[in-house]
Structure formats: C-alpha cells, structure tokens
C-alpha cells in the first residue's frame, strides 16, 4: 500500500466507517419509508395518496445535492432548528432514497396477481391483512434486485455528503490530499474502496434474490 495511504489509514478508515453508517441508516430508513409510501399509495388512501405521489415525483426530479441543501440549510431556517451535517445528510438520504424505493416497491406490488387479493379476501382476511400477509411479502421479494440497486446508488451518493461538510470517505480523502498532495494515489484508493463496497452489495443482493426471489 502506498505510504501516503498507510500514514493516513486510521483517518480514512474513520471516513469509511462514517460512509457505511450513513449508507446503512439511509438504507434502513429509506426502505421503511418507501414501503409505507408504496403501501399507502397502493391502498389509495384519500388525501395521503396524492400527496405522497407529489412527494415521490418531486424527489425523483430533484438532484440529490439540492435535497441535501434543503435539509441542511432550508428546512432548519424554515422550522427554526439547528441541523448537524450528519443529521441533515441522513434525513436527506432517507427522503431521497425513500422516493426511489417507493417506486420500486410499487412496481413489485403491481406484479402481484389480482387473484391473490381476491382469494385472500374471500378466505376472510381483512384488507389490511391481505396487504401485510399476502401482497407485500411477494412484492418485496420481487423488488429485491431493484432495492439492492438503490443501496449501491446510496453508497455512491454518500460521497455527495462531503459537500455539506460530513467527514465521510470522500471528504476525508480530499482533506488528506490537501495536506499531503498525492491526488492520483488517494483518488484511486477511495475509488477502489467504493468499487469493493458496491460490488459486495450487488453480490449480496444476487445471493438474497436467489434464495428468496424465485417464485414458489
């Protein structure tokens, strides 16, 4: 390993840890948000469904950078609270990824045959139980590849958090570069790190899909 990386390894590993925790928090929060949004829209709840549709379209038409700026500068100014960079980034990533995941799960929900719902209702389950016990599990399984695609995007996107001052991997690497100036070595090292993380997530997704995704 090049000397400049070795010397700054603890610092860079700290950045990697922050990148991974940001991505994990956002993946968990975004998935939960996405499932709820997709389920509410699927159920066609009055008032909530069109509002959530507007949220999804807004998020998917706006760059991540602007979403982060809104969470870091605009929302705190509007609501009068003080945001930490990490908190704002987590909120931004959850809102951003949640919208994409909601769409992926919506596609999964649409793929569940109507007959399943009718059969569930006919056998005496309540509509909510049909959704929770019959429709959602199948939709989630079908959505596994798309979900993991989003997680890969998320890991890459965490690099943007460095712009609002989160000291994740990219931010730390640029700090190291500012001090020791070895741009190509440093950029190549963190590029390889992202590559490994993303490939591992893709691999995990494929394995999980092979176990759960195949229709019974």
């Amino acid at each position, binding site marked *: 390993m090049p000397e400049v990386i070795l010397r700054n390894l603890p610092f860079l590993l700290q950045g990697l840890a922050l990148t991974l925790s940001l991505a994990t928090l956002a993946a968990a929060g975004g998935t939960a948000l996405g499932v709820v949004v997709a389920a509410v829209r699927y159920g066609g709840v009055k008032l909530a469904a069109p509002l959530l549709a507007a949220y999804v*379209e*807004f998020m*998917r*038409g*706006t*760059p*991540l*950078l*602007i*979403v982060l*700026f*809104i969470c870091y*500068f*605009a*929302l705190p*100014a*509007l*609501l*009068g609270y003080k945001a930490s960079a990490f908190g704002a980034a987590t909120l931004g990533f959850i809102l951003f990824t949640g919208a*994409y995941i909601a*769409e992926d799960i919506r596609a999964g929900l649409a793929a569940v045959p109507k007959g399943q719902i009718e059969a569930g209702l006919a056998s005496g389950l309540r509509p909510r139980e049909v959704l929770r016990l019959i429709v959602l599990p199948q939709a989630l399984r079908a959505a596994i590849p798309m979900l993991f*695609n*989003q997680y*890969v*995007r998320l890991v*890459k*996107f*965490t*690099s*943007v958090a*460095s*712009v609002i001052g989160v000291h994740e991997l*990219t931010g730390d690497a*640029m700090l190291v*570069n500012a001090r020791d100036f070895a*741009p*190509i070595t440093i*950029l*190549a090292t*963190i*590029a390889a790190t*992202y*590559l490994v993380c*993303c*490939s591992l997530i*893709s691999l995990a997704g494929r394995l999980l899909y092979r176990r759960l995704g195949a229709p019974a």
Partner: protein
Amino acid sequence: MTYHFDFAPIWAHRDLLIAGLARTVAVSAVALVIALLLGIVVGTLAAARRRLWRFAATGAVEMTRNVPLLIHMYLWYVGLAFLRLPPFLCAVLGLAIYSAAYVAEIVRAGIAAVPHGQSESALALGLTRFRTLRFIVYPQALRIVAPSLASLFSQLIKDSSLASVITVSELSFAASAIESDTFRSFEIYITVALIYLMLVMAASRLVLLLPGAHRPLLRVRFADA
C-alpha cells in the same frame, strides 16, 4: 412557524439563475452526446459474440459505474490537475464517462432483447455485420430502450448538479451563490428544485423525438434510476 416567505430577492437575482440554467443545459447536452457515442460502442462490444470483447466491455462498465460521480469529477479536476483542463471540461468528461457506463448497459440489454433470428436473417441476406447492426438491430433496440434512455437523460441532468462542486457555475452553483447573498435559503432551493423538475420532465419528453422512439413499447417514466 415564524418564517416569512420572501421570493423578491430570488426574482432580483434571476439573471444568475438563467445563466446557471444555460450552463446546466450546456454541461448536460455535451455530456449526453459523448455518453451516447461512447456507450453505444461499449454496449455493442458488451453484446458481442467474442468472449474477450464481452469481458473487457463488461469489466469497464462495472469499474466505471461503481465509482461515485463525484470521484469521477475529482479525478479530472484534482487527480489530473497537471493537465490544467478547464472545470467545465472536467465536469463534462466526468459526467460523460460515468453516464456512458449506464448507456452501455442499456444498449447491451436492448441488443439482447432483439430476437436472434433478426440478425441471422440479415446476415443470411448478405448484409455486412455493420449494416445488420445499423439497419436491423439498432432501430429495434432503440424502440425497446427508449424509456430507459429517457430515465438516463433525466438522471444525467440531475447529476450535472455535482459540477458545482468543482466550481462550474451551473444552476446549483448559482443557487448557493444567491443563498449566501440573500440568506433566503428555503426560497432559493425550492425554486431551483422546481427548475430541475421542469427541466427533467422536458428532457424525458425530448427523448421521444428520437427517430423511431415515438412509439415506445413501454410507458415512459421520467425520473427512474
């Protein structure tokens, strides 16, 4: 809530926003053209029959798209700083190469979706390999992938916002400048978000003007990953 909305300072800085919008369109348009050209070549290689081509192209695509776009831009702007490329060019190169990987994946999938019999018949009729691609495979593949291309185009426009990080004065850069000038952070970022939203919607409609793409086989989604 004690916040008083005031959009007047935003309107007063409209010239900055318009200049930024023009720069965003320029970065996106140039990057899109390069990404399409590069992506078609790499994607065709990824669908080739020679295993060597396939491995090389797929490997290049995976290496490129699993690295964050910001790193791609830093690579040109910071990593290769000794080349002294202007920031605009660095942003275009980073964005174009990153997006080309996605174009390549779309092109590969599109070619794979055209039934094999089509190119076999064309070759049997005596068309050259290039003409088979040009007249038989590509036109059919384009119809299949038009919705994905529309998504990619809008993704590219949104991604161009990262050019602001390497000092290209596009829309997001203008937003930050206006914000630090007026402190109307909510108004400016919502305005810019809506401008992006309109740009992305317009762009995805534009893809359907491509020859042969006007009747896509699937419904168009304007902001997919």
